């Protein structure tokens, strides 16, 4: 009796976990993904625990030691009011790694809902919504962001909403084309014959089957979100002082670059570069694993 009970769930289990385990395995075998994932995890660790292993307080100024070049005491030197650049680079990962993922999450949720609606209903809903989304996509994100942020004022919430909503149409387009293929399949017809509600068919029946393209699009968008957040912070429309954010630090210090104070901007620039490349390598890995 007990033997039957313990064995019976197994075939069901493998059937359920089979594809997932396969995807995970191929992710672990992908050098691209592992490299990217390691870089991203390094910065996540810095964002979470940075202040515990940063040698100095990233906000503490020390005017006497201002603009000191890199030395044993200050590995990356100090900035114009004597703050330790090394500590600021470590802790500077925090804001961008909060804002960018939240913006991506918003874009994914809104984009998936829109994509399901337009793909499932087609017809008039699809035509109207798709035209509006297309028009939106034609406008550069930076411009939309600039307008919205000047209109609404600068705050982390504004940045999240602006980037989230600018990226939603792109995700909606991907989801829509996946739903268009899915809705012709028998299981959708079966659900409709059972008189399931449209919402049930969309979110319970179709949604689980379009997860892979959504996942790929989300990881790719995360890279662009980091790009956008960093750029907005650099322009002064993103993360605000006194945060040690990378883009913000560069914007505060690049004016002195002609004076040869390279250490005040180089390490922040390299930090952004490594994070963006890390996320994109990981996204490339996810894309490869899900499309094999």
């Amino acid at each position, binding site marked *: 009796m007990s033997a039957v009970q313990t064995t019976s769930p197994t075939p069901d289990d493998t059937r359920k976990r089979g594809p997932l385990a396969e995807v995970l395995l191929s992710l672990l075998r992908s050098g691209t993904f592992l490299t990217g994932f390691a870089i991203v995890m390094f910065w996540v660790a810095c964002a979470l625990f940075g202040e515990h292993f940063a040698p100095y307080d990233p906000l503490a100024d020390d005017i006497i030691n201002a603009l000191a070049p890199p030395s044993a005491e200050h590995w990356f030197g100090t900035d114009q009011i004597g703050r330790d650049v090394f500590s600021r680079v470590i802790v500077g990962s925090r804001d961008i790694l909060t804002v960018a993922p939240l913006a991506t999450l918003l874009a994914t949720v809104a984009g998936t809902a829109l994509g399901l609606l337009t793909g499932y209903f087609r017809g008039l809903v699809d035509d109207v919504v798709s035209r509006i989304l297309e*028009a939106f996509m034609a*406008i550069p994100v930076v411009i939309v962001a600039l307008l919205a942020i*000047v209109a609404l004022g600068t705050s982390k919430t504004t940045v999240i909403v602006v980037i989230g909503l600018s990226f939603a149409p792109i995700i909606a387009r991907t989801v829509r084309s996946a739903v268009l293929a899915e809705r012709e399949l028998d299981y959708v017809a079966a659900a409709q014959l059972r008189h399931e509600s449209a919402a049930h068919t969309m979110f319970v029946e179709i949604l689980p089957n379009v997860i892979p393209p959504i996942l790929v699009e989300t990881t790719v968008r995360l890279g662009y979100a980091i*790009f956008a957040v960093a750029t907005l912070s650099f322009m002064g*429309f993103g993360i605000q002082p006194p945060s040690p954010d990378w883009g913000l630090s560069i914007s505060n210090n690049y004016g002195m670059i002609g004076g040869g104070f*390279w250490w005040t*901007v180089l390490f922040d620039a390299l930090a*952004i570069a490594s994070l963006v490349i890390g996320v994109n390598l990981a996204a490339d890995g996810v894309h490869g694993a899900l499309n094999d």
Partner: protein
Amino acid sequence: MTLFLLSIMVFLGGQVLPGNVGRAILGPFADQRAVDALNHTLGVDRPLLAQYWGWISNFVQGDMGTSYIFRSPVAPFVIDALGNSMKLAAVAFVLVVPIGILGGVVAALNLNRPLDRIISLGGLSVTVLPEFVTGIILILIFGVWLRWLPISAAWPRNAGFFTQLYYLILPSLPLFLVLFGYIARMARSGMIEALDSDYTRTAVLKGLPWRTVIWRHVLRNALLPTITVIATQTGYLIGGLVVIETLFRYQGIGSLIFTAARGKDFPMLESGILTIGIVYAVATLVADFLYSVLNPRIRLGSDQ
């Protein structure tokens, strides 16, 4: 449609933004009567629809309104800035289109060999980096350490063509890098598809020389999708211009919008953004036209 939506967005942005334009210009301590008077002069106390109609019909006739900050017509500023931006964009485009296509073609002809890996991965890496990051690194290398190129794009007055070009090389490089990856990737996948096609096999089996096959059969088909991509990149390019022009203190349309946004100079901001929208729409149109000219399979009706 896009332009219409953009104009509405820009206009609403310009209206919701300040709350009270007169108050924003005169500051919190100004007399209420002065604020009302200024609002009336600027016309911002009229109903929204009337304001929109007045603004858009004037814009179409070339009157972009009066700058709140400079108290003079916006149009000359916008036209000057647009000219400067086009110079910068032209340098970037002239560099990136041939080199990007060449990169993609070389990668495809060396598929999965080390050269392909280097071009693909390198292209992907530089494409995803924000322009100001590559800009800063390039400034450090070429402007501060090697001292080969000027770190600001503001050339001396009355500079000749080559001097201007010399000042524009460094600012155009970050734009080049961002666009390179996209163009090379499209050219590469277009080439791979074309090399794999039946007509290429037929051409090879007919005994045509490899060079002729590549030039006449493969390239022509491979580069069609690339043209569309190049046109859509104008959008990214414009976004990049805002950043690059700020970084290099260049008086282009991007820095005009940025300065106007910071100074809450709404007529300037609205005109700048709408101008960019028009440039974008024209670029898309030109790309559609080029595509139909180069692709014999799509002929406009009158040709038949």
